[in-house]
């Protein structure tokens, strides 16, 4: 084998196998996680129930029949290593891989939609319109979904826009709120408590259990924000399913 697979594999309880590619929030590392997830999703691992990519690691969670069977779990581990070695996925995204989907998300910045816009701009030492331009210029990537169904953790936030979380989290953040939490960006899929700084709101519905797929965004997707005004927000919100 040319390169030893650059990940550590550890058991997570009886049912989980965790593949750790690193311990940092880093776009290249996260891209390897998504590449490995694609390879392993196609590997038809017996008993696999969930495959959960996060920033720098990937969890494979198996059903009880597999978790109860040491020999089967050893075989699964062998197949995981073999599949990733064959694909070279542990080293880099697969050559010729389909390009990531790009999802455009319209955002109404500031005002009632983005109550923290001014404070974030002040923190960054720029004016509000510059903040909007720089936030909307970013090329974001869905590193993972978590916290609540359909909540995307986005990589790619302009470092100048990093902003500390609120000292006291809000008990209610409206659905669609586009927010900054430290170096991370995210979007609240429904009304939730939260301590991230809210800079705007999208009229798009990020999570709807009755929809297939239920989430607007999937791990690995690319995201572009587009600034819209209140009138367009109202029009899109009215048209949203």
């Amino acid at each position, binding site marked *: 084998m040319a390169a030893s697979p650059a990940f550590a594999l550890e058991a997570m309880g009886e049912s989980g196998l965790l593949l750790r590619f690193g311990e940092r929030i880093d776009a290249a590392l996260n891209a390897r996680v998504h590449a490995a997830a694609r390879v392993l999703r196609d590997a038809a691992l017996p008993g696999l129930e969930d495959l959960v990519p996060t920033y720098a690691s990937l969890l494979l969670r198996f059903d009880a029949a597999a978790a109860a069977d*040491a020999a089967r779990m050893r075989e699964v581990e062998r197949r995981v290593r073999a599949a990733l070695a064959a694909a070279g996925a542990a080293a880099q995204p697969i050559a010729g891989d389909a390009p990531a989907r790009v999802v455009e998300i319209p955002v109404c910045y500031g005002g009632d939609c983005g109550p923290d816009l001014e404070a974030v701009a002040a923190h960054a030492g720029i004016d509000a319109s510059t903040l909007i331009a720089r936030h909307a210029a970013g090329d974001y990537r869905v590193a993972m*979904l978590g916290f609540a*169904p359909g909540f995307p953790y986005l990589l790619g936030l302009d470092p100048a826009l990093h902003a500390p979380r609120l000292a006291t989290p809000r008990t209610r953040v409206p659905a669609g709120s586009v927010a900054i939490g430290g170096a991370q960006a995210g979007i609240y899929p*429904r009304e939730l408590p939260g301590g991230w700084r809210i800079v705007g709101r999208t009229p798009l519905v990020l999570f709807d259990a009755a929809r297939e797929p239920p*989430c607007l965004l999937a791990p690995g997707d690319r995201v572009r924000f587009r600034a819209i005004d209140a009138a367009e927000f109202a029009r899109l919100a009215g048209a949203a399913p």
Partner: protein
Amino acid sequence: MSIEVLKPGLLTTPQDRGRPGYAQLGIGRAGAMDAPALRLANALAGNPADACALEITLLGPTLRFRADAVIALTGAPIDARIDGARAPLWAPVRVRAGAVLALGGMRHGCRSYLAVRGGIALAPVLGSRGVDVNAALGPLDGRALRAGDVLPVGTNADDPHPASSRRDDAPSPPQAISPDWSLDFRPWFDGEAQRPLRVLPATHTCNLDAASRAALFEGTFRVAVDSNRVGYRLDGPRLALTAPLELVSEASVAGTVQLPPSGQAIVLMAEHPVSGGYPRIGHVAAVDLPRLAQRRPGDAVRFAATTLEEARRRLAEREHRLQRLEAAIATRLANEVHGGAR
């Protein structure tokens, strides 16, 4: 057939095996907290293992049955009365149309399961009829039962023993289908025994300081009042790492023992978030997680170390016992219908 909710109880939710397969979208599996108790309730009611039943927390609901039904209650020993007469637990029980099932408190334990033949037939959401209370996801808009709810009950395709097949004219006391047998619950419910829960090592177990490692396995913890279907917070010895760790969020599984900076350990339960950034100092063995789910606030919790091999072996044994029992119950129910009416 349907069931009317007269009183909802403290926290009564429809539950099944949950919704695996969506964790990558931030949607957890959730499902029953004491999965073996749910499966046995279904078996006793004549349902498939994945049918939806009610999970009852500490104080039960009062329900009116709009048609004849067969029910079974498992899990924590709950005060159960049908039109005032005590109903047996861990056994199939016949309920007449119009009867009121009043479920009260539990002597000990935290969760009982009520299965109804045919299963609770609410429309599934993302493949499950279970309610994920924390994510507000599932039927009933993802909430617990409320007074006035009407729960539809389905029909099993191969029902060996339809609830309405035998009717007598006179109202009768609650009747076990086979008054001479009920399941021996002892292997499936802890009662007052406080055997330690076995814990597997996790990524950051070795980062615990020596005193904390000793306290984890020698100390006694208590289930904190703010414990729920998301996680069990443990009062007792405060645990500490040799040095603080700044971690990037990684995925979690049910049973993961997290250690936030406060030093109060949290065991992740059915509705745990799919990822988290706290150090992981252990995993409660899968066979012991339902036992933890039956502890209520104030109950003692002790831990004992185990290995992955032993935990897998015990899980295999439990699955084998459960499957044998489910098959034996199904055979018995089938024989009774063929054996004719008593």
